[in-house]
């Protein structure tokens, strides 16, 4: 073999992205490569696949997964500068390109229906719930985006003409997507359109089309063959994510065909009544074409949890199941079905028992919702101190989630995501649409919008921020605003305009000095002046606040409080700057503990000073999301904490069990500890004594139950625990109670039964008392029917202050005839509770 001096540049890298080189990072890489004339080829050393780096599709098809070693070879006139740019991009920017595209919450697949349905002999089709909810409708079977076979397409005429038809079609589709993008207000939807835009403009796609036309194919045939080529390539990928992208290519090809034909090629399904759409898979465009008034649920055979259609269904609140095998065969068109996307199955036929089960289920869900709504509006500690619990969010979808979870507002609406993963800055209009949506969705809640926090770990290539040795100590947050005036002004104008639709407030990140606050306020005044000149409405008195992330702020609070309306503590950055320890470096991250006595002392000082100045102070860092820290936060006397929406119900429930003096005392003791470990021990001991809830509350005394079977009674008990928030996992609790019943019946005779269990599925030891209107069979020892049920559920592992003594006394009392008689005669929940309190303790 002859050795030649290589004139090409090359380098090796290992893919650090957890989902591999999928569409979005691939499109960013292609963008960089396209700036140069040199040929850039990527080789995946794991599977030996090559890809033209300038083609998103080719890069996706190379199936680069997490940890794969790849070589990039660059050859051509500007190879050296291309090498430098690509290498820098791959090493610095690419690892940060992976902001996940609202990945569907993963829920374990259920495989047994509730016992009530089992007892009724109902056969269900199971799937993975990817968008929650329960819906009923008639089955409409839809076929996915299927390309027509190439036989019924027209033959080629003049190659020049065919090529022109393709070019026109690409331009038209490009324009159409761009137009949709301009009106798209949800970041999730925009990301999908961005990905489609990248595909339609892909060089590999264009090359393939041109090549086929040159070989005598008609425009239509070329599009079909290209579609087949790419979908085939992607379907062979080992990554689910990339296989799912095959439907995106089909979608693009269908749109091109529509253009070439000048007409719609695919069957349009018109929904006329409440419908459940069943398909193998569904392209986003097909989903969007369905009439939302009648679309009640979606059932897909293909198990695609990150498909764009699934993301859209979630954001529009359409219950959806995926991975329902043979759904199109098992579900008959036109038949009424129930899609239970909470539990993860379809009930293919609605019998009277199914009807009855779901009527009861609806009441349970309504009552649970109502109970949760009791927790909306600021919650108070046991001794009456209010603490707002807000959510962190970055899209209108997350705002809805926050509302569902009982948030009191949005304590941190992040906006930097709007800048990331795209080629240029978002326009003022685009931003306005998002902030206005946030303002409208929030319906009067406060929404604190944090202006762009770029730099540090969040890179945005088109801002041309210089690479830094210490990005976290460098050019980031508010520090870049002076240089990027136009970007800032457009964001501030957009927020101000949206402020006339709801209670928006503005917050600046990374403040370290008074000058920055004064400049920030001047920028807001400038934006206000511009809007006033144009006669555009906005809230003149919009609240302006700052983040406390830099320790210097703690020593400047008097001056800063005079300038702002509110302050919010960002514990992630504050702790890493305070301890000079990088959170991202596992060797030192533990040093930056938010539970360190020094840090707690700093927080205490900050809150005291701010309250002394009569201003409002919240906390929006990760410290607020950890329920173990809650007593410390209550002890600090914060006005608000802001955390991921999913954590809110648990946090709210815990707040109402805490008392301010206890928490203040705990904090004082923590501050004088020597180490984080000591504080941890203190918290653990406090935790043990604070979680106790009463065994029985009025809501758990169910007199006058109309349940008709043992299955229904147990379901009703489980639902009662669910409604009051003592369990979130009804399936597990139900199975635990049945596991005990299956050993032998808990019917103890005399018309009494005591279903009981030990389980992790409840938050607290609990009792539920249920009295039936009509006796039912329980398989009791005396073969007599049962009317009185006393259910005992013990939490495992045990909380301290467990109730074993109470349970054993109750069990013994149930053997006492007089006690049973009195319990049976109890006519109100109060009477029953009083009796239990007297006799059992």
């Amino acid at each position, binding site marked *: 073999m002859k050795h030649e001096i290589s004139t090409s540049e090359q380098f090796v890298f290992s893919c650090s992205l957890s989902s591999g080189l999928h569409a979005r990072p691939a499109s960013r890489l292609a963008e960089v490569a396209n700036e140069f004339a040199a040929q850039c080829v990527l080789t995946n050393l794991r599977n030996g696949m090559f890809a033209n780096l300038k083609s998103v599709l080719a890069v996706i098809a190379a199936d680069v997964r997490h940890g794969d070693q790849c070589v990039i070879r660059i050859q051509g006139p500007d190879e050296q500068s291309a090498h430098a740019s690509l290498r820098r991009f791959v090493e610095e920017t690419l690892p940060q390109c992976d902001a996940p595209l609202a990945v569907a919450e993963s829920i374990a697949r259920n495989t047994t229906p509730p016992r009530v349905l089992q007892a009724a002999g109902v056969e269900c089709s199971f799937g993975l719930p990817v968008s929650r909810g329960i819906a009923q409708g008639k089955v409409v079977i839809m076929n996915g985006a299927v390309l027509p076979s190439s036989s019924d397409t027209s033959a080629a005429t003049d190659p020049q003409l065919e090529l022109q038809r393709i070019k026109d079609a690409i331009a038209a589709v490009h324009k159409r997507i761009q137009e949709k993008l301009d009106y798209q207000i949800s970041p999730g939807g925009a990301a999908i359109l961005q990905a489609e835009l990248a595909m339609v403009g892909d060089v590999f796609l264009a090359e393939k089309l041109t090549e086929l036309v040159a070989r005598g194919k008609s425009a239509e045939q070329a599009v079909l063959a290209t579609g087949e080529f790419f979908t085939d390539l992607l379907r062979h990928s080992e990554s689910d994510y990339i296989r799912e992208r095959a439907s995106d290519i089909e979608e693009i090809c269908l749109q091109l065909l529509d253009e070439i034909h000048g007409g719609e090629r695919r069957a349009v399904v018109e929904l006329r009544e409440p419908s459940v759409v069943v398909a193998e898979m569904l392209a986003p465009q097909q989903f969007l074409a369905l009439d939302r008034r009648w679309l009640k649920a979606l059932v897909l055979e293909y198990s695609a949890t990150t498909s764009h259609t699934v993301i859209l269904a979630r954001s529009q609140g359409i219950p959806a199941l995926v991975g329902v095998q043979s759904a199109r065969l098992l579900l008959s068109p036109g038949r009424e079905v129930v899609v239970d996307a909470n539990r993860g199955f379809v009930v293919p036929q609605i019998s009277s028992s199914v009807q009855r089960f779901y009527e009861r289920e609806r009441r349970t869900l309504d009552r649970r919702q109502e109970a949760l709504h009791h927790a909306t509006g600021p919650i108070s500690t046991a001794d009456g101190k209010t603490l707002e619990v807000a959510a962190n969010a970055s899209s209108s979808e997350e705002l809805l989630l926050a509302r569902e979870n009982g948030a009191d507002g949005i304590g941190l609406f992040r906006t930097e995501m709007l800048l990331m993963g795209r080629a240029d800055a978002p326009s003022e209009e685009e931003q306005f649409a998002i902030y206005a949506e946030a303002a409208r969705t929030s319906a009067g809640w406060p929404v604190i919008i944090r202006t762009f926090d770029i730099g540090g770990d969040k890179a945005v290539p088109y801002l041309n921020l210089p690479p830094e040795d210490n990005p976290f100590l460098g050019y980031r947050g508010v520090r870049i605003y002076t240089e990027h005036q136009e970007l800032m002004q457009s964001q501030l104008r957009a927020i101000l305009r949206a402020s006339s639709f709801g209670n928006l407030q503005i917050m600046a990140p990374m403040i370290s000095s008074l000058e920055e606050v004064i400049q920030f306020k001047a920028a807001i005044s400038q934006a206000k002046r511009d809007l006033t000149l144009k006669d555009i409405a906005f809230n003149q008195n919009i609240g302006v606040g700052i983040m406390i992330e830099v320790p210097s702020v703690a020593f400047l609070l008097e001056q800063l409080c005079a300038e702002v309306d509110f302050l919010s503590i960002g514990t992630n950055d504050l702790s890493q700057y305070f301890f000079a320890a990088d959170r991202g470096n596992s060797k030192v991250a533990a040093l930056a503990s938010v539970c360190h006595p020094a840090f707690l002392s700093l927080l205490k000082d900050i809150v005291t000073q701010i309250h002394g100045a009569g201003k409002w102070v919240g906390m929006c860092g990760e410290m607020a999301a950890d329920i173990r820290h809650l007593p410390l936060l209550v002890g600090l006397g914060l006005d608000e904490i802001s955390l991921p929406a999913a954590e809110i119900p648990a946090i709210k429930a815990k707040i109402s069990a805490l008392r301010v003096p206890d928490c203040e005392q705990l904090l004082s003791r923590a501050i004088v500890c020597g180490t984080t470990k000591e504080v941890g021990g203190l918290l653990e001991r406090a935790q043990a004594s604070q979680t106790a809830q009463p065994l029985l509350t009025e809501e758990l005394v169910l007199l006058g139950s109309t349940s008709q079977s043992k299955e229904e009674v147990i379901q009703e008990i489980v639902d009662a625990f669910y409604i009051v928030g003592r369990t979130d996992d009804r399936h597990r609790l139900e199975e635990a109670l049945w596991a005990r019943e299956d050993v032998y019946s*808990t019917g103890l005779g005399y018309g009494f039964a005591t279903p*009981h269990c030990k389980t992790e599925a409840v938050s607290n030891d609990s009792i539920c008392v249920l009295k039936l209107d009509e006796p039912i069979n329980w398989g009791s020892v005396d073969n007599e029917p049962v009317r009185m049920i006393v259910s005992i559920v*013990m939490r495992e592992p045990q909380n301290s202050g467990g109730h074993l003594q109470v349970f054993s006394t109750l069990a013994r009392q*149930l*053997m006492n005839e007089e006690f049973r008689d009195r319990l049976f005669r109890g006519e109100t929940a109060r009477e029953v509770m009083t009796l239990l309190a007297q006799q059992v303790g």
Partner: protein
Amino acid sequence: MKIVAVTACPTGIAHTYMAAARLEKTAKTLGHEIKVETQGAMGIENNLTESDIRQAHIAIFAVDIEVEGRERFNGVKVIQVPLQEALKNPESIFAKIQRSI
């Protein structure tokens, strides 16, 4: 008659104690002296001492699981029944005892 008994069930929350209460009550009605040790979720309670066992004419095990410290009862006549029996028909257990002595 002097009787000792042990009750134990799988979860140890309810039936252990219900059976104990039932045995105590029935024994009293029938004029026997009984001491019942419960082996439940709270651990062993109302421990049977060596002398309790030595003095007993008979031991009743109303259990669905293995008795802890079974060796303590070596040398004593034991009647073992499923726990449910103590709830369902405790009198029959005592009748059985009468017959066996």
